[in-house]
């Protein structure tokens, strides 16, 4: 066993920390204060692009990008440590980062070579900040992803999409959206297909940037698809692929790398709140009080525990071992203890927290989403119960 990071990782985290301190935290506070996402043309994004960020980890048609692009050699554990540290500074700014984002993994694992070329090559050496996004959630289904209602109907040499999506990160600024739709809403996951929908495609519209409680630095956007026609080539992976695998995502059943990321985010936010709370309590001579110490101790202990759980889930994923139970566990627990840490921070602040201008107050709002996205805490327990007691679907 080992519970230590190596020097390379320590250096890596030091970079994340420094950029978090000087860039992400101020940007996140600014967006929160102004109540709007960081604008597309914000110089911050330009700086990131100039620094070589916002790129794809697709090796490119000739494999050259292996050297210059985003590194795909990172282990899940390393990615989780970075995700935790970034979220410590500002989780919202982390999500707002330009790049191929959430759908990249799906495109890399399922996309055809032609699709990778068409949709990822623009992220090899992006000329400006560019985004892509993943359109799954709908107004009437969040955690129950199998119940999506957006339909895809075959029409000649293309597909016609109809439906509505909501809370989609970065949708209005994305170059393209990977839209999840169903061939038949009564057939569950096996009828699910994913389609690339380019920005500007007729029928894609009605973008509405939602007003949120927290995490304001990135846009969560609703939009509609009205007789939105995309060519055959835009079906992710091509139809032949679905004949073999019986629907979307079936290949990912045994391990999950997404939930531990949210867990790591929650630990990061909770840690930030704990550090702020410790600093505040220290400044106000509260650390001599047993009740205060006790609560801080509990919070630190639970955060550390959640971090270990999250890293264990990641470590299992790296070892290609089943981690569904651990992934759900880490997500359920981390979101909870992250929330408790921010809530404790508010309590120690007292009425200072009620003013609405303290970092802890922002963290208290921000962290709530960690118990909702990627499956709520309740859904994580359902998933766990399927494993532990074969809870029927």
């Amino acid at each position, binding site marked *: *066993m080992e519970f230590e990071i190596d020097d390379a990782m320590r250096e890596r985290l030091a970079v994340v920390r420094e950029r978090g301190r000087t860039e992400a935290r101020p940007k996140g506070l600014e967006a929160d204060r102004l109540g709007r996402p960081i604008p597309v043309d914000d110089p911050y994004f330009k700086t990131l692009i100039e620094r070589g960020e916002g790129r794809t980890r697709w090796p490119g048609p000739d494999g050259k990008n292996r050297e210059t692009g985003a590194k795909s050699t990172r282990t899940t554990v390393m990615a989780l440590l970075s995700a935790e540290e970034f979220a410590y500074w500002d989780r919202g700014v982390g999500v707002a980062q330009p790049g191929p984002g959430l759908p990249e993994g799906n495109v890399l694992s399922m996309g055809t070579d032609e699709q990778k070329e068409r949709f990822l090559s623009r992220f090899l050496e992006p000329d400006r900040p560019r985004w892509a996004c993943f359109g799954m959630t709908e107004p009437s289904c969040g955690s129950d992803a199998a119940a999506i209602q957006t339909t895809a109907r075959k029409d000649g040499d293309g597909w016609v999409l109809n439906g509505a999506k909501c809370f989609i990160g970065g949708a209005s600024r994305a170059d393209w959206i990977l839209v999840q739709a169903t061939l038949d809403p009564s057939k569950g996951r096996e009828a699910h297909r994913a389609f690339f929908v380019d920005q500007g495609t007729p029928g894609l519209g009605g973008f509405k940037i939602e007003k949120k409680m927290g995490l304001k630095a990135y846009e969560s956007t609703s939009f509609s698809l009205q007789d939105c026609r995309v060519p055959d080539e835009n079906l992710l992976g091509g139809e032949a692929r679905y004949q073999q695998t019986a629907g979307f995502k079936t290949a990912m059943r045994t391990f999950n790398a997404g939930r531990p990321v949210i867990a790591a985010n929650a630990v990061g936010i909770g840690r930030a709140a704990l550090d702020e709370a410790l600093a505040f309590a220290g400044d106000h001579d509260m650390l001599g009080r047993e009740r205060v110490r006790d609560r*801080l101790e509990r919070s630190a202990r639970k955060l550390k525990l959640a971090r270990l759980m999250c890293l264990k889930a990641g470590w299992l994923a790296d070892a290609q071992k089943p981690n569904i139970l651990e992934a759900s566990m880490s997500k359920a*627990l981390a979101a909870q203890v992250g929330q408790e840490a921010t809530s404790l921070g508010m309590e120690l602040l007292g009425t200072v927290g009620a003013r609405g201008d303290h970092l802890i107050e922002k963290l208290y709002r921000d962290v709530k989403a960690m118990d909702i996205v990627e499956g709520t805490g309740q859904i994580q*327990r359902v998933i766990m119960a399927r494993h532990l007691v074969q809870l029927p679907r």
Partner: protein
Amino acid sequence: MFDFDAGDDLDLIVETARSFAGEELSPRLRDHESARSVDAGVRAKFSEIGLAGLELPEAAGGAGLGSLARALVNEELGAADAGAALALDPLGAALYPLLELGDEGTLRELALPLLEADAARALLVCEDDAALVGSIDSAGDRITGSVPWVPSDRCDLLVLLGRESAVVVREGVRLEPLHGSGLRAAGASELRLDEAPVLARWRGRPGAARAMARARIHQASLLLGVLRQAADFSRQYALERQAFGKPIAHHQALAFLITDMRIAVDGARLLLHEAAWRLDTAEGGEAAAAAAYAEAIDASLLVGPNGVQILGGHGFMQDYPVEKWMRESRALGLALGGLDAAREDAGRALCDGAEKSSFATFSFGEAV
């Protein structure tokens, strides 16, 4: 980097402990409890497999392993019968002050003979668990006081652990048998010291803190074993027992309780292993051990009683072992100052900032 595997060597030791516990201890759970001792044949087998010398230095004929090995082995023994585990280990947690504060001579003279004796028990008592005239740290040549409960019916060697010293007593120790709430396989007594002569005294705050930390790992890992077993037993029961036309586990209120019990057990284990690893690699870890013990106790408050709850009326009856685990999980969390002392140590370390290097090897808790 992070590695959650114990490795082949430790896996082998764990496997030995697991099969011994499953074959010899589990089937005799109630027998050992009512006899207030472990069957002589079982004791002989335990001596054979060599687990008693797990943490003894190799020079003293032991395996020279550390707290992580202890944590892994104790989880297996505790999962079968934590009381028997205490009864089987002649030195128990009393070994730690001897190792951390004492010298090789005293170890050889005081401790090793107990390994040869039949059913001998060395006991560790910490300041918070005793009512003493004066404190351990300031005690003179003789010591007087009482300890309301020790899980034993005999005391061949008593080690009293204070904040900055340890005292060894062998004569003048009187035990009054008690019924005991749990861990009865190890016995249960009130311990009295009446002008007991101090045989040896060692001072040193860091050593005392390390001894306490190792004792907490010892105790927490037995507790973890009990919790694992209680959670798993009740989970399996919930799959068999039907109510309202389906297994009770498929009622979501029960399903979620079962998941939360599993989260509690797995979480406590992670903190325990991290703390034990830290103690072994000599990077501090005292506060981590305190937190790990606190977490195991925290988990026991959920898992112990709910193990009974899931079995309903059957859980309350002694035909099933869950009531025993509920009692014993509570008893195991009361020693070494219990939850309050553990939280106080961990909390002080956090608030004094002493944690910054040991509690978190990276950024966690780092000043901003």
